[in-house]
């Protein structure tokens, strides 16, 4: 099975997020930067030092790159204490300085009090901190983080990220942060590079990358519950819109103008939360897409309720539980769905 | 993976049942020094009578232990008198079948190129510094080893060469030690040395006066199911044809004292 990773990115000091679905190549990219995996061709440099250059036949070993890497599994040395783990990369320093630096970084990440414990003896969040401290103790040029905060509570995550930011304010190194969670992308709010199938798909701020996804898989990752396949029925350049006929039904919806011609196959991504629902045929609306359908299922999900509505094409719609009560929504009920043109995003399938 | 497959192979091999003994076959336990003479004896016998002789070669001590514990042999050709006598005394032999079939001799064997002057110096040549190791069969239980020690003692050089001695489990192994060059000389059985595989060296006959005669006796075992066939093979070996073959291979059936010949 072949996988081709073909990317060109630049990461300035600060956090750059690598976002994309599983198997997109994010971890592979980190492996190449760290020197654990050797690319077939290309050039990697960090802070002016060339780490790898296929043309000049340069390939620094991982231990010469000064690149810090926190793996998803953390890879803490199970037979060593926290302090020994953190000090592992400092072997070149004299003993006193080593102890000083280790203590300094452990304090910065609040794991100083666990210094004599082994990794199995502390909690998940503390292990993540020890792993971070271990990587940063060596004052690397680059920090690579592979899904470092999976499985932690929101407030734990936030606390660790705060400490990381504080540390980086002083050191200003590029930090590449790999994640497939859109919450984390929004929370971190820094530069995002979206990767899929081994290629860079888009770059920019979280809003730019997440809310206007160009790729279907990014769209799924970014939380667009409705991904509708169809073909272009009409192109109206003057109005800046297109009409798309959805597969498997007579439904046509109006979407923003895209680079497509009539007959082209497209995929339209719509958030379930962007769809309005009415129990009576709406009148005088600005929205251009009104579709009649029937509720197939009502699925309560905590703070919102998900409705499956069949308009010839199935739709997922999110409404509040109070709306469900007020309108007495139930399966079998006839409803109308309202969809703004600009809530429809064209996505490559 | 390799270990697993070789284990499976070993299991299979051990589980394969041994060939069922056929009625037209007798099983013989023979001393190692008969290794070259016995096949010819067996072949001639089969040609004459159609009875197959299957032979197992071991040191006489090993055979004796096994026979004591019920090993399924019909005949035992030992390299000495003691073991067959013990079997008879223990009631494991068919009475009256114990007999001497040959007399063995020991020789000093050296590989080609050795510069020992045995014809003139006799066993004293073994004291030469070029001889670092002398291989003999283990005297604790091998008759030829005991004979070798006896000869060295009689020649008065045992004390001087004792440190050079190395012991093979049987005379075949002693021969191996010399042939591989690890021992520079060996006191071996003449019957081993007469075989073609040892023609890359010289054998010097040790004077008979230096050691008690190596009388080799055979006996039919009580547990045999083929008594008549076993007896007929024994008679064949002691008869004219058998003696001719034995003589060819370094045994001396002519030396067997008539009183020891035993009953037919």
């Amino acid at each position, binding site marked *: 099975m072949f996988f081709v990773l073909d990317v060109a990115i630049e990461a300035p000091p600060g956090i750059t997020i690598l976002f994309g679905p599983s198997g997109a190549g994010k971890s592979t990219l980190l492996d190449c930067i760290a020197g654990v995996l050797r690319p077939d061709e290309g050039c990697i440099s960090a802070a002016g030092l060339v780490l790898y250059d296929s043309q000049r036949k340069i390939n620094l070993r991982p231990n010469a790159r000064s690149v810090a890497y926190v*793996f998803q599994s953390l890879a803490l040395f199970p037979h060593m204490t926290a302090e020994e783990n953190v000090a592992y990369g400092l*072997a070149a320093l004299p003993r006193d300085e080593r102890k000083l630096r280790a203590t300094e970084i452990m304090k910065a990440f609040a794991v100083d009090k666990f210094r004599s414990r082994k990794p199995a003896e502390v909690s998940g969040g503390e292990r993540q901190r020890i792993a971070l401290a271990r990587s940063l103790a060596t004052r690397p040029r680059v920090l690579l983080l592979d899904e470092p905060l999976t499985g932690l509570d929101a407030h734990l995550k936030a606390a660790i990220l705060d400490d990381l930011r504080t540390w980086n304010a002083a050191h200003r190194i590029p930090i590449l942060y790999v994640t497939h969670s859109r919450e984390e992308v929004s929370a971190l709010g820094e530069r995002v590079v979206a990767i899929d199938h081994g290629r860079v798909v888009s770059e920019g701020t979280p809003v730019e990358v997440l809310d206007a996804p160009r790729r279907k898989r990014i769209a799924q990752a970014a939380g667009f519950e409705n991904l509708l396949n169809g073909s272009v029925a009409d192109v109206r350049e003057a109005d800046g819109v297109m009409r798309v006929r959805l597969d498997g039904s007579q439904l046509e919806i109006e979407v923003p103008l895209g680079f497509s011609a009539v007959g082209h196959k497209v995929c339209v991504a719509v958030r379930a939360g962007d769809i309005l629902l009415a129990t009576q045929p709406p009148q005088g609306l600005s929205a251009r897409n009104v579709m009649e359908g029937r509720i197939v299922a009502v699925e309560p999900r905590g703070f919102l309720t998900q409705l499956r509505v069949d308009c010839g094409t199935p739709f997922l719609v999110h409404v509040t539980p109070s709306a469900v009560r007020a309108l007495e929504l139930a399966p079998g009920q006839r409803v109308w769905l309202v969809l703004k043109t600009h809530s429809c995003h064209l996505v490559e399938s | 993976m390799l270990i697993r497959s070789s284990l499976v192979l070993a299991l299979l091999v051990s589980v394969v049942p041994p060939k069922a003994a056929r009625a037209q076959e007798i099983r013989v336990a023979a001393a190692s020094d008969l290794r070259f003479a016995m096949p010819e004896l067996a072949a001639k016998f089969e040609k004459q009578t159609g009875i197959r002789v299957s032979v197992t070669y071991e040191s006489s001590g090993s055979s004796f232990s096994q026979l004591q514990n019920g090993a399924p042999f019909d005949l035992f050709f030992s390299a000495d008198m003691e073991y067959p006598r013990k079997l008879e005394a223990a009631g494991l032999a068919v009475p009256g079948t114990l007999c001497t079939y040959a007399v063995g001799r020991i020789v000093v064997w050296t590989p080609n190129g050795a510069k020992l002057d045995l014809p003139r110096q006799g066993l004293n040549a073994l004291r030469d510094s070029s001889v670092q190791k002398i291989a003999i069969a283990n005297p604790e239980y091998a008759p030829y080893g005991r004979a070798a020690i006896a000869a060295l003692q009689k020649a008065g050089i045992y004390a001087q060469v004792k440190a050079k001695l190395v012991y093979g489990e049987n005379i075949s192994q002693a021969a191996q030690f010399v042939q591989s060059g*690890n021992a520079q000389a060996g006191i071996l059985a003449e019957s081993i040395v007469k075989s073609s595989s040892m023609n890359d060296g010289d054998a010097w006959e040790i004077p008979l006066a230096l050691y008690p005669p190596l009388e080799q006796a055979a006996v039919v075992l009580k547990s045999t199911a083929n008594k008549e066939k076993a007896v007929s093979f024994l008679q064949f070996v002691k008869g004219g044809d058998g003696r001719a073959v034995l003589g060819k291979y370094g045994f001396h059936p002519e030396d067997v004292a008539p009183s020891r010949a035993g009953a037919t």
Partner: protein
Amino acid sequence: MTLEPLLLSIRLALVVSVILLAGGLPFAYWLAFSRWRGKFLLETVVALPLVLPPTVLGFYVLVAMGPQGPLGRFWQTFFGHGLAFTFEGLVIASVLYSLPFAVQPLVASFESVDRKLLDASAVLGAGRARTFLRVVLPLSIPGVVTAFVLSFAHTIGEFGVVLMVGGNLPGITRTISIAIYDQVQSLDYGQANRMALLLLIFSFVVLSVVYGFHRRVGRDLGRRLWTP
């Protein structure tokens, strides 16, 4: 009954086990982590003593030790006498015979170390030697113990190879297994039984001490080996 054969066997087993560990560690490390395509050939060679009957192995070692053989010639040049029928000869033959019992547990142990730990060590600036000494080896202690114990036990019980190259010299090459065999051959069953019992008791004591200690250490290590 003399203790000499047992002491000789113990001496032989200790020397052989130490040599196998000293040589086996770097060799096993290479086998575990090398990516050379011909690696499987070496693995097969290492496993050969498992399938070869000991007497066959012993025979070829005997030939190799002879004046024409590679081992014999080398030894003769350096030491002025032959290699067969000496304690050193037994050591060499036993090292060959017990090789897989040392190398295979070591390789298995090294290979079971989480590769990510090795990557982490490299990324943190450690060279291969440091990674081996500080990460791989401490996490492979059970394998090292197993390798030592198996080599030791296997050598104590060795018979076929010693028979072929030893020459049965008391105090030099007459190990306890040979001594017991001699006694059986000489029909001295009483002595043989006594010696066999002595060997059995000794082996039982040594092995139970090692396994008892190992189990305790192993359990502790097992707890610590869990990574999140």
